[in-house]
């Protein structure tokens, strides 16, 4: 195989196996792919290390000792100190080298992968379908590898293979999984296609993710309107596709609030007004009326027991809760979540 094919083969393999698109890592892997061919003075690496290539040519077969598991182990041991500097670069060195000789399994003569055994590893078994150096088949393979490499660099430099696939499928579970992974660092915007179950209106717009409910459903908001969107369960929006289309970096803060017979406003007014509250709040007296338009999720549910009103909050906005509690006393056990955008700080 020509040098360029080796470079691209090793870089592609490393890109897929390590899931990285770091140009330094991929370049190192690509260059290491050239090293096994040091056993012939016709190769680039052979030209560079002439004394070594002359020695190897004199005493060994081409694609012999340097194209073996033994050589890979030696390289892994020799470069072991690199692991302290950067484990990913170490993995790229060993993988790049191993893929460098492994690619030669597809050539006419194969490789002595199990050196010191003289057995030559080949694939496929029929030599007619193996690749001759510089043949048309090799250029075809090179084109295919280059396309694969470009695709995986694009995938890895985005949000990774799994999320790219989820994006293509537009699945609700993909959006939920991405929220579980990234919800702590990013405010995710999701584009939902579907219909509102209660109003039967078609939905085709963007929402911010507030929280996940199950493996298939999320609470999302658009301005002050909240919805449960997903594919299963008690839904406001039944989604035919959900794609995460934007992420904004945020700082995420959580606070637990436990209080007994205190002025609720004193406690809540200390919190950021746009933070979310989840939990239960018992208020002395009655609260104002809660109205939620049809087709939306009411994040505050009120139940009255005699003189006490119980508020059940599900990601309710602090500002809205304050409007209800006014100057009443109450007790509660709440979780506060605030997402502060970097830009806002």
């Amino acid at each position, binding site marked *: 195989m020509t040098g360029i094919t080796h470079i691209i083969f090793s870089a592609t393999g490393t890109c897929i196996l390590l899931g990285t698109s770091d140009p330094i890592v991929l370049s190192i892997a690509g260059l290491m792919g050239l090293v096994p061919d040091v056993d012939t003075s016709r190769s680039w690496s052979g030209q560079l290390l002439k004394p070594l290539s002359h020695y190897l040519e004199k005493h060994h077969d*081409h694609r012999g000792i340097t194209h073996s598991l033994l050589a890979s182990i030696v390289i892994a041991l020799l470069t072991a100190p690199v692991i302290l500097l950067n484990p990913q670069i170490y993995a790229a060195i060993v993988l790049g080298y191993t893929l460098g000789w492994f690619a030669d*399994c597809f050539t006419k003569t194969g490789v002595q992968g199990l050196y010191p055994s*003289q057995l030559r590893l080949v694939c496929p078994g029929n030599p007619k379908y193996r690749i001759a150096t510089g043949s048309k088949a090799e250029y075809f393979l090179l084109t295919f590898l280059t396309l694969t490499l470009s695709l995986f660099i694009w995938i890895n430099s985005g949000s990774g293979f799994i999320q790219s696939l989820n994006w293509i499928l537009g699945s609700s579970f993909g959006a939920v999984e991405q929220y579980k992974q990234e919800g702590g660092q990013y405010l995710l915007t999701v584009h939902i296609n579907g219909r509102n179950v209660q109003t039967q209106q078609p939905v085709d717009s963007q929402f911010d993710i507030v929280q996940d409910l199950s493996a298939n459903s999320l609470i999302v908001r658009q301005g002050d309107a909240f919805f449960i969107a997903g594919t299963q369960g008690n839904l406001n929006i039944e989604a035919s596709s959900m794609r995460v289309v934007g992420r904004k970096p945020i700082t995420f803060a959580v606070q637990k609030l436990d209080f007994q017979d205190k002025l609720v406003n004193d406690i809540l007014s200390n919190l950021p007004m746009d933070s979310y509250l989840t939990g239960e709040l018992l208020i002395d007296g009655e609260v104002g009326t809660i109205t939620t338009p049809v087709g939306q999720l009411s994040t505050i549910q009120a139940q009255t027991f005699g003189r006490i009103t119980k508020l059940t909050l599900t990601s309710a906005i602090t500002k809205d809760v304050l409007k209800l509690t006014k100057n009443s006393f109450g007790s509660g056990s709440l979780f506060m979540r605030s997402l502060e955008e970097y830009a806002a700080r």
Partner: protein
Amino acid sequence: MTFYRQKEAAIIVQSLKAAESLLVLGDTGSGKSFLAAQVQTQLQKEGYLCVLVPQDVPKAQILSITSCLGIPDTNIEGGKLNIPQLQNEVLIALEHTTAFLLFDDAHRLTPLVRYWLERLHNQGQPMALFATNPPAEGIFLRLPRFTLQPLPPKAIKQIIGETANKLNYELSNSQMSQMLAYCGGCPLLAERVVKESYLEIDPEGPDHHQQLDITPFLVALLMLAGIVRIIGIGLNRTSLYVIGGLCLVLVGIIRYLVYRLPKNNRKRLSP
């Protein structure tokens, strides 16, 4: 020509001298005939009677033995003896004479000769058979056997050098190490590769048997991607489950296509 199988020759000579027969197995071109000739020379040098039976029709083969042992090929009336009669004569003669029989390309021996060899073997006659893929029956199953290993790269390199010298063809070390990859320790292929290169013919592909097709291992390795599917179920992660499923389908397709490729036919040469 340099002789590289000194050790093997010594084993055969010693075993024959101890009145033990041997079956020597080796691929085509692994140097069996050359080894047989060396064994014969060595035994004759030590003063033993040793017959290297040529690759020929049964009649000629038996006649070569009778002439060496000094058995007349006619009866008292002057009539020519037929093959079974000659075989009987050899059986009787060898009961009292010490002589070693070497059969090259023994896998080509006709059943007539093979049955006779069994009778000779039962009589305690030491012989060495050199064969490539003989049938696993009769005399071939009875004899202790050993297999000729591929020659080391150093020896093959010397053979390549000698062949090139004969052709007045100059080869660089780099060319030699490239050729070595086509030989797989087989001296016949070493000569052929040099000649092909001399005639500027591109080598087709290696013909030696030191090859291991790793396609099944690769397919098995790719099928491991299916584990992702099970992990997906275990962790309740639907996307892993979907990816595992996609991988399995892809592997299935690759497997189907790879196994549809025509197999390498070792029995026939095809263009």
